[in-house]
């Protein structure tokens, strides 16, 4: 008799749980659908833009950073499609230094003294609109492409 009561209570409990959290799940669903759509769109654009020629601009607190080559000439932004040999440049962020690696059509932060290391974990980036951020140092690497308008999604 008691066992029967318990088995009857279970679906009732489940129903109450769903009813109690109905609006929570509606909110979760709406936000999840909206955000997942944005994520899928982002991934689609990312996949399509894989082989584009890219240019990287290193910004410090929103301003283009001056990075001089051996002749004292500013080489920022970097035209990555024209780089054929691997090279490293060292820049000073707000708190620590960063080493940026450059190779043909790709850029990465290979070393950073920041505590989070998110910029290093980002790895090699070879497509436009995928920025590299080192929030701790106020560094933002913007990656763009001139052939961006050639992409068609769908």
């Amino acid at each position, binding site marked *: 008799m008691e066992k029967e009561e318990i088995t009857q209570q279970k679906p009732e409990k489940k129903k109450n749980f769903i009813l109690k959290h109905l609006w929570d799940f509606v909110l*979760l669903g709406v936000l999840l659908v909206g955000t*997942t759509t944005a994520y899928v769109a982002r991934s689609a654009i990312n996949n399509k833009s894989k082989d584009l020629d890219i240019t990287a601009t290193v910004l410090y607190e929103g301003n283009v950073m001056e990075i001089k080559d051996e002749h004292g000439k500013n080489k920022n932004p970097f035209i990555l499609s024209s780089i054929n040999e691997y090279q490293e440049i060292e820049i000073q962020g707000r708190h620590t230094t960063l080493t940026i690696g450059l190779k043909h059509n790709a850029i990465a932060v290979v070393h950073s003294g920041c505590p*989070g290391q998110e910029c290093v974990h*980002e790895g090699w980036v070879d497509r436009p609109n995928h920025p590299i*951020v080192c929030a701790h140092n106020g560094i933002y690497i913007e990656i763009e492409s001139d052939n961006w308008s050639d992409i068609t999604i769908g």
Partner: protein
Amino acid sequence: MIMKKKITIKQLTLLAMLLSLALVLSIAESFIPFGIPGLKLGLANMVILLAIYYFGFWMALAIDILRVIISSIAIGTFLAMGFWMSLAGATLSFFVMYVFYRWLKIFTPVGNSIAGAYTHALAQILVGVFYLGSWGVFYYFPVMAIASLITGTFNGFIVEMILKNKYLSTAVGYEKTTI
């Protein structure tokens, strides 16, 4: 003006314990790398939501702001970009959670937590846009937002379970035991 009711020693103790807990969680989760700037488990948000239910607006806001300031000093990011991102995220999510708690009664602590976590992510991105001067920072938003929805739901259910604890509710003088 701020406190209409006198605070009891029990409440004061619990308040200090909540602040300590929020601090420990904030500092501990800052050492868990996710590979995406600003992405965290948001465990401290759980404590802030609890404080809203237990102590109301001013006390919870005090815990929220104090934990951001003290934890950033401990981690070494005070007044750096990470600090402003945390402060903006914590403040905006606090106001959203409070609005949900106070006026949107159709939501349980789970809904409050989800809304808080989502706005936390959004506020961090907006500070990033302002600080770094590029809308490109929104690239990270979908991943951060999806992660915030997962952690927000999880944290919300934990808060709901804690609020159901009659012993704790009695200790802080929290009357609504049927969440």
